[in-house]
């Protein structure tokens, strides 16, 4: 079954790659998300930004993907930010203890 529940859009500007993640990020679409992000992790000369403004739902699998991006970028000493996190998702990040590791912009 093909699913359109996750929407991914990438925008590239000078020194910046913004990935807009919308819809539902869960176990079903985890591999789709990983495959989309994988090639961007190596772009160490660019600041990688994940925008979550249109994200309606995330589970521990989705949070796990953010953790692996965070670690991959950290290991490469490459900049990574998360921006526009909806309130109820921010609450999960806080609970999970991931917030202090993410540079979250409004």
């Amino acid at each position, binding site marked *: 079954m093909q699913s359109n529940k996750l929407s991914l859009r990438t925008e590239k500007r000078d020194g910046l790659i913004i990935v807009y993640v919308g819809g539902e990020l869960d176990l079903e679409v985890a591999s789709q998300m990983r495959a989309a992000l994988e090639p961007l992790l190596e772009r160490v000369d660019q600041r990688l930004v994940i925008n979550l403004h249109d994200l309606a739902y995330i589970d521990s699998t989705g949070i796990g993907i953010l953790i692996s991006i965070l670690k991959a970028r950290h290991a490469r000493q490459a900049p990574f930010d998360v921006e526009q996190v909806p309130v109820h998702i921010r609450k*999960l990040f806080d609970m999970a*203890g991931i917030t202090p590791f993410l540079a979250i912009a409004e």
Partner: protein
Amino acid sequence: MKESLVKTTIPARAEFVDLIRLMLYGIASKMKFSFEEIEDMKVAVSEAVNNAVVHAYGGGDGEIDVAFGISDDELTIQVRDHGVAFEPDGLGKPAPLEGKSIDEIQSGGLGLFLMQALMDRVEWKQEGGTSVTLAKKRARSEETA
């Protein structure tokens, strides 16, 4: 509200987990839980179903039974599989990322942690598979108190 039980069975595959979220949403709305409580329960229930999808049948075919127990006091959700018993080792532990450095953090155990943090009660049983029961108490309104 009269005590009621709503039961369903889904194939143990990731693409069916959101169906359980939709059912949860419908039932919890009927019970007048708040938006925030419903969002919390959606995540907790999905984590329980995810565990069954990932661990119970080793990637093979299987089924997951979900039973929503509706009463005046609380909503319970039982998620049950008939596969390999999954032994949780993170019950009662603190947030898995707390006090760690970026190199140390990992997402293992996060689902289990969230289930406990988001619900009032989580019970784990091994009985021909794994059965997880999640419960959320209803806030009593003035009229019914």
